[in-house]
């Protein structure tokens, strides 16, 4: 299986990531990331038959705590960083 990073694919990935790129970026990223991707193919050589993926290293699972109420942010604090707001709401661009 041979994958190549084309300018088309970079544009598609940028769209998936909601990241606008200009033409110069598409060109330079395609070239730079193709080299990186070629390097990543060394992973194909690793023998991993029967090996479990390590999502975390400490093998912790289901860390639980008591559900006790504690202090939380006030609406003013929670909204303080929003670039646009109205009253107690964050103003977002329209969805559709």
């Amino acid at each position, binding site marked *: 299986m041979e994958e190549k990073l084309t300018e088309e694919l970079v544009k598609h990935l940028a769209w998936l990531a909601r990241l606008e790129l200009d033409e110069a970026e598409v060109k330079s990223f395609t070239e730079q990331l193709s080299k990186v991707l070629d390097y990543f193919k060394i*992973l194909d050589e690793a023998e*991993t038959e029967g090996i479990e993926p390590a999502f975390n290293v400490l093998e912790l699972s289901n860390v639980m705590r008591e559900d006790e109420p504690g202090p939380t942010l006030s609406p003013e604090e929670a909204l303080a960083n929003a670039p646009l707001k109205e009253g107690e709401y964050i103003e977002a661009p329209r969805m559709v």
Partner: protein
Amino acid sequence: MLRLRAVELARMVREGEVKAEEVIEAFYERVAKVDGKVRAFVRLIKERALEEARRIDQTVAKRGRLGKLAGVPIAIKDNICIKGVEVTCASKILAGYRPPYDATVVARIKAEDGIIMGLTNMDEFAMGSSTENSAYGPTRNPWSLDRVPGGSSGGSAAAVAARMAPLALGSDTGGSIRCPAAFCSIVGLKPTYGHVSRYGLIAYACSLEQIGPMARTVEDCALLLSIIAGRDPKDSTTANPPRPFNLSEVKGEVKGVRIAVPKELFGEGTEPRVAEEVWKAIHLLEELGAKYEEVSMPSLKYALAAYYVIAMSEASSNLARYDGVRYGFRANAEGDWSKVYSKTREEGFGPEVKRRIILGTFALSAGYYGRYYLKALKVRSLIRNEYLSMLKKFDVIISPTMPTPPFEIGEKVEDPLSMYMMDVDTVPVNLAGVPAVSVPCGFIDGLPVGLQVAGRFFEEAAILNVALAIETELKLYSKEPEVA
């Protein structure tokens, strides 16, 4: 005063030999004098720091109790949250962001009466090995101003090396503490994954990164670790160590210590003179009673690729939160949600962050997930297992921290792969989760070389112990860069 160790400063402040206010003033004076050239800090919080210092001095006058960091100035990387103080990850996209809470490490430093001076420069979102990928421009290496200080915690390392702060915090995802520590000739430690809380650390790659201490001496580095380490209910990936980190175990005694020296970490990109300096230190340890053996860890061949696949994948997911709606920068764009979101990110992120988001999105997307992301996670298992079995037979693993001395500003920034290659010796321990420290071990033509000691889960005392033995023999902390 600028030359004193943090442990000494804290003692002197507690015993009233010097005022905390005088200490803080002295370090800010040093910043005023040299940081125009080095550019280690991106934000100073002098008013707050002075207020803290005066409060500490009042406590001393009233003979009240003070903590282990009493009056010690500390520099903090620009990705760690202090309540009410702008933090940006050296990115335009977080411009103006003031966190409504303290990171756990910050709260712990305050509880021990440490004084935070300001925030230091870094590669944007901690993505880089040179501190060139910053919206504020590059930090310079105090040992040679036309060279990089390493990264991504380059500002913290440069601040400590240039005597602008006795202590600093960095974060290390794939070497971001150890690389600049090596390049600036200071001590920097990446703790065991889960040993230090990440609450209030702005995320890049959650399964790999840890906050850690940076200092001029092993003792100071150990002191700061002892304060920030420990389980935190606010970070469910923290764990209780089998035994808590104990400062008094760091004695510099290496008699009988078994050292593994993996040949893969002296690979083809390693400059022979760097390898030479590291070997000299290993032989020194041998003279002190340690035993070493050259070993092979074949899975390390895949470490760099596995690391970058995992880090980029996690980054593409973590950085999805920067939508210009809830905090930080928002582009002045017309249109629907997708349009504003995309435009905000185009204007807000620098090129390296964009590249990692693109390639991370690729590695996680349908059709490629198995070949890249899942495969990288399996390789992580291999590497972790190899470390664990190696560390059954040996107490520590020693290698160069960086394959070369610090490179020139501008040398690698246009060629991402050549920059990534610099991390070849540092990323394996992030994949394995084990702790590692970089300690100065020599100079090549006036440029610093660092040696890396890795060890078992939660056995930071053992690696610091070896680092201390090297430090005690070489005394490189007494060398100072000539920046003035």
